[in-house]
Structures are given as structure tokens and as C-alpha cells.
């Protein structure tokens, strides 16, 4: 690989990543040589500008056809574009949260917060558009490592330390499990490029190793459920969410989860779509029941355990576990709507969850507590917080005229659309949704029915903006979901996802 | 004769032969150590205007070290009752074994080499790292404040200097295009790498001295501060093995320096008729002498200077050296 091959690549397709990388590096250097006591506000602005720039770059790329550089380790297709938009949007909002997150023992490394956030984002974006096990894995780890540190950012706060450590340990285990599965995938196909793996999967030789393949699938899947906080690797979520600083929690529950689904779709679907099962039918069909059980278990665990929570952050941790379960449903029922459904739900989830966390951040900061009681009489104290919060909660519960409802509706379409329809999965989802009513409406009840002492809540302008944006988007998407859907259908052709443009013969082992 | 042996199907016969040869090498090394110590004392003596050992074995004290060894052999060895006994006993072994193992891959001449490993250099670096554990273990197991401090310092120093050491040789690898020590030597047929990567050589030499815990980097066993560092509690032959380790490493490191930078057995132009073995010996002794010389000349560094030097001077230099070497390769070769 010499200079002209190097120049033959269309580096422009990597523009968003380059922007983020550059800004992150720049931030780290500036922060390093900044005076300790000088304000870090400019850094936040710079970071925000970087993310916006990356977003702009992606929107400029919208009409470029699917391209792949660096021997298909990096590819730009509709899938990556669509999900990168989510990642960037989420990070942008989280950035605002972070900028207005006041806590004395975070001040000293506030600068680090910003560029760690960006590095995590970079990892997620790499995942979104890499088609090779190695780069996927490196992206995943970049995201994870940055998140670990962010979770422990409040160095003097025991809970923060502890959550960070628990995150590291469970994350490490998850990584190891995923890798172990991946190693088998590699071993059976002898490739790390996803499309070549998919090709070699047709190799009749593999029919003899159906069991190994199944093992590889299950273990890899189990490992990947960590990032999306779904069963079986969901246990970390409550503690980490509780201990981590609120913006980080928001990041984990939205961006990190989105990234988790990205890698899940990329890796599992492309790799195993052609894989033979134990008795030589499609593997994906064969494992469907197990994944279904996992999804159902996730929904049940999340929603039922959330009932018992008094701590709002823990409650949202379990709720986000439950949401992961919902989003797994279209993944299981592998309907042809798969991508837009997941994309739309994640979009809706982004707005409603970040909105909710914005309010949680404001309240926890003022009341110095995480108990649900901080919501007491919020409607009386400051209705302009209570009403948006109500919308977010209704949306999370999936009540009409909110984005959450349309998302759930879509998921049901996915689950019930096929022959045979997955009635019982839909039933489980519906039942758990009903259970979720109880704890979501409990918060609403606390806000409206209890009359709480406590002063009016002061909201920093930045957070107010995020709040307004999220609330409006939640309702708009609920009333006119076509805005999002048309955007999706108009700009993204999901067939590109399966399109292997890198001719196989050029991809040999010589590099 | 060695060739066909190596290419034959391995069996117990091989084990026997290799064992014999290895034992032979071990003996030579021990011989070297004995006289290296004497030489060191002599040279230091002359540098300090005094005649070093001159009683035992003629006026050159040829048997001085032998006598010392016997003395050590008949010393009573004590293990403090507070010590962690198994580790205490294990430590010298763990320190010594790798020191000897690394010799397996050193090419002493065209056909005088034991294991011609493809990744010889990597092997050397990897194995030599193990000794650190032995030293740390010794320091910790003694359950003594001085030795613990010494052990920790030794470990810190050794790992700190391992980085520049490891990175400084990359220049050499660049030129040779291989990790195999034989290839590296052959690569120096025309010009020794010392001239191609002077920076690399400089960094490597200093780091190697530090790795050997020799003056001016001998803080771990700084008599005046820590009594004797990590081996305070060791006595008799157990102590002797730590000493032995250091001198075997001196041997190994000197050979490695010769191989990597001084062109191993390669003769100086127009003097090809002198056998490679001899060339190797000459260059090797030069390096050893240099190290002794340094010890005679330079004072001991302060701990903070020591660490700072490794990370703030040598490491950047080593990193820089990578690109200098690459540039040299691009431009001149």
C-alpha cells in the first residue's frame, strides 16, 4: 500500500470523523495548557462547534452513494449516515447538559469531560461506519474506555468512583465475552471483513460446524447486549446510572445505547445473515426464539424492577433497560421495517430521555437528592418544568400524540407484520408497557397530586433550550411522524447496508 | 555438524546435546563473571590510583573472586522469620534464570549461536523483563523497609528505562528489516548501525546501563541510602545469585550491544582474515570496559533526576530516533 493507493481513497467521506478527532485533540491540548482557574466555557463552545460541523458534513454527504475506503474497513452507507446523525445529535444535547452541570469536584477536570465525550462519540461513529471486526472492536473500546472515565469523573465522589469501577469490570467482562465470540466467527470464516465473513458463511464446510456457529452467535450477542443494557448483561446499568454524573448518565442511556444497537445491527445481521444453522436452515431463524426470550426477559426485568425504585436515576436506569427490550423486538422479528423502526424509536428515545434527564439534572442539582420526592408539587412550583416532564414520561410510556407512541406503534407493526406474527412477544411488550404506566404515572402523580414545599426551580438558559427542543420534538414527532420517516425514506436507501462494493478479489491477505 | 542436527527431527538425543552445550556456555559465563568482577575491581583500582586485588593468586589477584565465591559458599544463610519464606527463596532463581536464558539467542559468531530465533530481539526484551519481577519479589519478601524501598525503586527504574531501550532499537530493526539477530548482524556487513543510528545507540547504551542497575543508576542498591537495596536480607549464596544475575546481564547486554550496533562478528574492512569470534570478543570487551569506566567516572544520580531523565529525555529521543532512522533509510539506502 503506497502513496498513490493512499491518495486513491476518497478521504472526504471520513470528514465527520476527522472533524471530531481534530476537535478532540485540539481540546485536549488547549485544556492541557490552559490555566487551572481560567473558565472552560470556550472549550464547551468549541466542542459544540465541532459536533455541529460534523453534523453539517454528514448532511452534505447525504447524497453521496455508498463508498468504502481502506479496504472496506470504513464504509459510508445510508445506515452509517442515518445512525451517525442520531449519535451526533445526542452528543450535542448531552454537551449542553455537561456545560451547565455544576459540581465543585468536576470543575478541575471539566475540560477533560468535553474531549472524553468527543472521543466516545468518535468511537461510536467509527462503529457506525466500519465493516471490519477489528475496527468495530476498536471503535467499541474507544467508546467504552471514554465512558468508563466519564462515569468516574467526580473523583472525590465515592458513588462516582464506584460506578466507574463497576462499569469497568462489567464492561471488561462484556468485551472479553464479545471478543471470544468474535474469535470463533473469525476462526470459522478466516476473515475479519464482515462481507467476506458473510461470503465464507455460505461455505458448505461450515455446515459441519453449525453448533460452533450457534455458540459464536449466542456468546457474541450476549456480549453485545452490554452496551444496550439488555439482559443478560444489564446489571451494571442501575449502579452506574446512579453514581455517574447526570450528563454522563444521559450519554450512556442514549448515545451509548444507540451505538450498541449500531454494532448489534452491523455485526450480527451482516455476519450471520447467510450463516447456516445446526440443521442447515438459516441460523438467524434458528436462534430467534432465544433472542426473543432475551428481549422478553429484558422488558420484564426492566419494567418490573423499576416499580420498586425510589431513586429517580435508578428508576430511569431500569426504564432504559426496558426500552432496550422494546427496541430488541423489531430486531428479533427481523421485519423489513427493521432499520427505520429502530432508527425512529431511537430518535424518539433520544428526545424524550435527554429531555427527562435535563429536568432530573436541574432538580437533583437544586434539591441535592435523587429521591423521587424531589418532584413533589413540581406543577405548582414551576409548571414549565412539570408539563414537559409529563410529555416525556407519557412518551416513554407510549401514550399517543407523543413520539414514543409512534415508535411503539411501529414496533408492533414490525412484530405483527410478518407471517407468522409474533403475538406473544407483542403481548409481553404490551403487558410490560402497562406495568410501566404505573411507575411513569407515579412520577406524574407526584408532580401534580402532591403539593410539595420547596422554591421555584431555576433553569439555566442552555438547559431551557434543550428542554424546549426536546419537548417540541417529542410532540412534533408524535403528531407528524412523517417528518422523520420521510426524511429517512427520502435520504437513506437501506439496501446499501447489504451492498458489498469492495470487490472480493482485491481484498487479499497481502496487506 | 550443528546444521543437520538442527534440521533433524528433534528427540531426546537433541536434548542431551543441547544440555551439554548449554552447560558449556554456562561455565564460560561463570568464568567470565569471575574475571569480569576481578577486572572491574582492577580497573577501578587503577582509575583511583591504587592496585586493586593483589593478594590471592599472584600479584594480579587472579584467584580473588574464586576465593570470594568460596567464602560465600560457606557462609551461613539466614532467612528472617518475618520474611515470606517461599517467595524469599524463589526470588533469586526467578531473577537469575532469565538472565541466562537470554544468552540462548545471541550469535557470538557466524556459526556459534544456540537458538537462531526469528524474533530473537523480541525474545531478549521479553525474557529480560522477567528479572524485574524477581528483584521486586526479593525486595518484598524480605519484609524489610530498606529492601522494600530498594525493590520498588529497582522495579520503577527498570520499567522506566525499558521503554527507551525497547524503542531505541527500532532504528536497527528498520535497517535490518528483521528481528532475527543473525540478520541484523549480516545487515551490518558494510556499515555498523552505530553510524546509522547514533541517537539510538546513545539511548540504548544509557538505558542498558540503567537496566543493569549500575552506577550512575545504581540507586536500588545505593549503599549510602538503602544499605544494600533489595537484597539487604540476603546472605551467602542467595545474595551471590543476585550479584551473579547482574554480571550475567552485563555479559548479555554487552553482547547485545555488540550485535545490534557494533556489527557483531563482522570484521572491520580489510581485516576479514581475523576470525569473527575474535572480532566479537574485541567489540564485546570494549563495551564491558566502557561500562566499568563509566562506573569509575560518574557520580550517582538523584532519584528524581533518574526518572525524569528516562521519561523526559530518553523517551522523546527514542521516538525521534524512529523518524530520523526512517529518514536515513529513505535518503541513503
Amino acid at each position, binding site marked *: *500500500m*503506497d502513496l498513490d493507493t*493512499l491518495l486513491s481513497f476518497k478521504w472526504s467521506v471520513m470528514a465527520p470523523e476527522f472533524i471530531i478527532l481534530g476537535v478532540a*485533540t485540539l481540546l*485536549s491540548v488547549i485544556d492541557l495548557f490552559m490555566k487551572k482557574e481560567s473558565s472552560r466555557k470556550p472549550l464547551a463552545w468549541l466542542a459544540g462547534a465541532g459536533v455541529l460541523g460534523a453534523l453539517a458534513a454528514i448532511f452534505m454527504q447525504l447524497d453521496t452513494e455508498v463508498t468504502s475506503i481502506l479496504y472496506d474497513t470504513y464504509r459510508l452507507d445510508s445506515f452509517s449516515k442515518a445512525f451517525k446523525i442520531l449519535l451526533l445529535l445526542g452528543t450535542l444535547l448531552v454537551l449542553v447538559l455537561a456545560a451547565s452541570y455544576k459540581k465543585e469536584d468536576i470543575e478541575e477536570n471539566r475540560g477533560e469531560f468535553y474531549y472524553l465525550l468527543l472521543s466516545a462519540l468518535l468511537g461510536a461513529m467509527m462503529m457506525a461506519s466500519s465493516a471490519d471486526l477489528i475496527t468495530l472492536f476498536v471503535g467499541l473500546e474507544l467508546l467504552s474506555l471514554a465512558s468508563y472515565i466519564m462515569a468516574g469523573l467526580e473523583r472525590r465522589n465515592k458513588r462516582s468512583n464506584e460506578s466507574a469501577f463497576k462499569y469497568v469490570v462489567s464492561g471488561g467482562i462484556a468485551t472479553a465475552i464479545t471478543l471470544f465470540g468474535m474469535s470463533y466467527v473469525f476462526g470459522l470464516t478466516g476473515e475479519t471483513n464482515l462481507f467476506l465473513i458473510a461470503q465464507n458463511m455460505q461455505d458448505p464446510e461450515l455446515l459441519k460446524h453449525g453448533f460452533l456457529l450457534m455458540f459464536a452467535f449466542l456468546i457474541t450477542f450476549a456480549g453485545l447486549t452490554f452496551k444496550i443494557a439488555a439482559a443478560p448483561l444489564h446489571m451494571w446499568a442501575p449502579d452506574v446510572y446512579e453514581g455517574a454524573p447526570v450528563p454522563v448518565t444521559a450519554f450512556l442511556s442514549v448515545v451509548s445505547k444507540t451505538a450498541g444497537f449500531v454494532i448489534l445491527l452491523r455485526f450480527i445481521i451482516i455476519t450471520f445473515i447467510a450463516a447456516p444453522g445446526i440443521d442447515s436452515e438459516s441460523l438467524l431463524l434458528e436462534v430467534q426464539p432465544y433472542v426473543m426470550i432475551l428481549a422478553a426477559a429484558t422488558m420484564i426485568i426492566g419494567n418490573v424492577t423499576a416499580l420498586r425504585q425510589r431513586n429517580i436515576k435508578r428508576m430511569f436506569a431500569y426504564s432504559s433497560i426496558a426500552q432496550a427490550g422494546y427496541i430488541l423486538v423489531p430486531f428479533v422479528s427481523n421485519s423489513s421495517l427493521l432499520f427505520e423502526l429502530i432508527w425512529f424509536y431511537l430518535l424518539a428515545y433520544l428526545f424524550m430521555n435527554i429531555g427527562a434527564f435535563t429536568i432530573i439534572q436541574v432538580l437533583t442539582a437544586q434539591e441535592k437528592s435523587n429521591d423521587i420526592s424531589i418532584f413533589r408539587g413540581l406543577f405548582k412550583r414551576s409548571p414549565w418544568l412539570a408539563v414537559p416532564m409529563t410529555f416525556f414520561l407519557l412518551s416513554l410510556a407510549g401514550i399517543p400524540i407523543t413520539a414514543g407512541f409512534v415508535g411503539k406503534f411501529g414496533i408492533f407493526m414490525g412484530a405483527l407484520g410478518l407471517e407468522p406474527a409474533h403475538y406473544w412477544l407483542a403481548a409481553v411488550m404490551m403487558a410490560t408497557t402497562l406495568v410501566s404506566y404505573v411507575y411513569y404515572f407515579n412520577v406524574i402523580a407526584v408532580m401534580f397530586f402532591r403539593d410539595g414545599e420547596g422554591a421555584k426551580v431555576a433553569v439555566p438558559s442552555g438547559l431551557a433550550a434543550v428542554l424546549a427542543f426536546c419537548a417540541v420534538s417529542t410532540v412534533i414527532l408524535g403528531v407528524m411522524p412523517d417528518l422523520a420517516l420521510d426524511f429517512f425514506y427520502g435520504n437513506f436507501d437501506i439496501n446499501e447496508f447489504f451492498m458489498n462494493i469492495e470487490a472480493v478479489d482485491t481484498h487479499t491477505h497481502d496487506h | 555438524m550443528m546444521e543437520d542436527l*538442527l*534440521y*533433524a*527431527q*528433534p528427540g531426546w538425543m*537433541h*536434548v542431551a546435546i*543441547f544440555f551439554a552445550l*548449554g552447560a558449556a556456555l*554456562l561455565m564460560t559465563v561463570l568464568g567470565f563473571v569471575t574475571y569480569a568482577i576481578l577486572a572491574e575491581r582492577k580497573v577501578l583500582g587503577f582509575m583511583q590510583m591504587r592496585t586493586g586485588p593483589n593478594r590471592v593468586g599472584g600479584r594480579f589477584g587472579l584467584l580473588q573472586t574464586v576465593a570470594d565465591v568460596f567464602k560465600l*559458599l*560457606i557462609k*551461613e544463610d*539466614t532467612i*528472617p522469620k518475618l*520474611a515470606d519464606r517461599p517467595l524469599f527463596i524463589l526470588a*533469586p*532463581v526467578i531473577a537469575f*534464570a532469565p538472565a*541466562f536464558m537470554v544468552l*540462548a539467542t545471541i550469535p557470538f559468531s557466524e556459526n556459534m549461536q*544456540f*537458538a537462531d*530465533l526469528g524474533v530473537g530481539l*523480541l525474545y531478549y526484551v521479553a525474557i529480560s523483563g522477567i528479572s524485574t519481577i524477581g528483584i521486586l519479589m526479593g525486595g518484598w519478601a*524480605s519484609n*524489610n*523497609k*530498606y529492601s*522494600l524501598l530498594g525493590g*520498588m525503586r529497582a522495579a520503577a527504574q527498570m520499567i522506566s528505562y525499558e*521503554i527507551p531501550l*525497547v*524503542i531505541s532499537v*527500532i532504528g536497527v*530493526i*528498520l535497517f535490518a*528489516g*528483521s*528481528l532475527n539477530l543473525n540478520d541484523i548482524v549480516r545487515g551490518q556487513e558494510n556499515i555498523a548501525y552505530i553510524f546509522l543510528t547514533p541517537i539510538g545507540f546513545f539511548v540504548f547504551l544509557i538505558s542498558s546501563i540503567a537496566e543493569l542497575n549500575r552506577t550512575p543508576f545504581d540507586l536500588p542498591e545505593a549503599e549510602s541510602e538503602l*544499605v544494600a537495596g533489595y537484597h539487604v*536480607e540476603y546472605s*551467602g*549464596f542467595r545474595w*551471590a*545469585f543476585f550479584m551473579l544475575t547482574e554480571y550475567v546481564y552485563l555479559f548479555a547486554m554487552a553482547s547485545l550491544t555488540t550485535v545490534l550496533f557494533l556489527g557483531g562478528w563482522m570484521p572491520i574492512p580489510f581485516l576479514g582474515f581475523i576470525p569473527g569470534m575474535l572480532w566479537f570478543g574485541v567489540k564485546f570487551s570494549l563495551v564491558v570496559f566502557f561500562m566499568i569506566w563509566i562506573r569509575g567516572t560518574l557520580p550517582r544520580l538523584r532519584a*528524581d533526576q533518574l*526518572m*525524569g531523565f528516562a*521519561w*523526559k529525555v530518553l523517551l*522523546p529521543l527514542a*521516538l525521534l530516533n524512529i523518524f530520523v532512522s*526512517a529518514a536515513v533509510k*529513505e535518503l541513503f539506502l
Partner: protein
Amino acid sequence: MDFYNLYQNNYLIVAVFLFLGILLPVVALTAGRLLRPYKPSAEKYTTYESGIEPFHQSWVQYNVRYYLFALMFVIFDVETVFLYPWAVAYEELGVFALIEMGIFVVLLTLGLVYAWKKKVLKWT
């Protein structure tokens, strides 16, 4: 197949050397046991502390800076995992690889600078 034998032989030698390296101390120490005297007394077995009575455990908490150096070592030592293969394969890879390595090392240096500024490299 011959090369396979060569390969195996080489590592067989390594094994032999390991064996020797362990054998020598064992032999020497056992031999020493026959020669050396054995006159135990309580004082001999106390920990040495410049003559004074040893006071409380010496297995204390290490200074944290040792950990920091350990971390630094882990990071930088592992980077050689990439540097060595690169150096070996430099012939084929050519300039592109050089540029790549440039970026890599720059980031590495950035890490070093970071540690420097954060006073990690400061002993005492």
C-alpha cells in the same frame, strides 16, 4: 518440514536453557547446605534495621506514584506491539506506513506531554 524441525529445535534449546537457569541455583544452594554452618539464634533472624529494634510491619501502602509509573509503562510498552511489526515490514509498506506511524507516534507523544503536564513524571 525441515524448517518446522529447526523451529522446534530452537525452542527446545530455549527450554534447555530455562532448565539450566533453574538448575544452577538449586544445585549450588543444595551444595552450599552441605558446606555451610548452621548456628541459629534469635537475633540472626530479626529483620535488619540499622541496628535498632524493627518496629511495625514494613508491608505498607506503596506511594501512589509507583502505580502511576506502572500505568505509564503498561501503555508505552504495549505501543511497541505496533512499532516492531511496522519496523520489520517497513520495506513493503513504504511511505504511507511512515505517515501512519507519524500520526500514531504524535498521539503517543501527546499522551507523554499530558502525563508531563499533569506532573505524573515528577518523582518525589
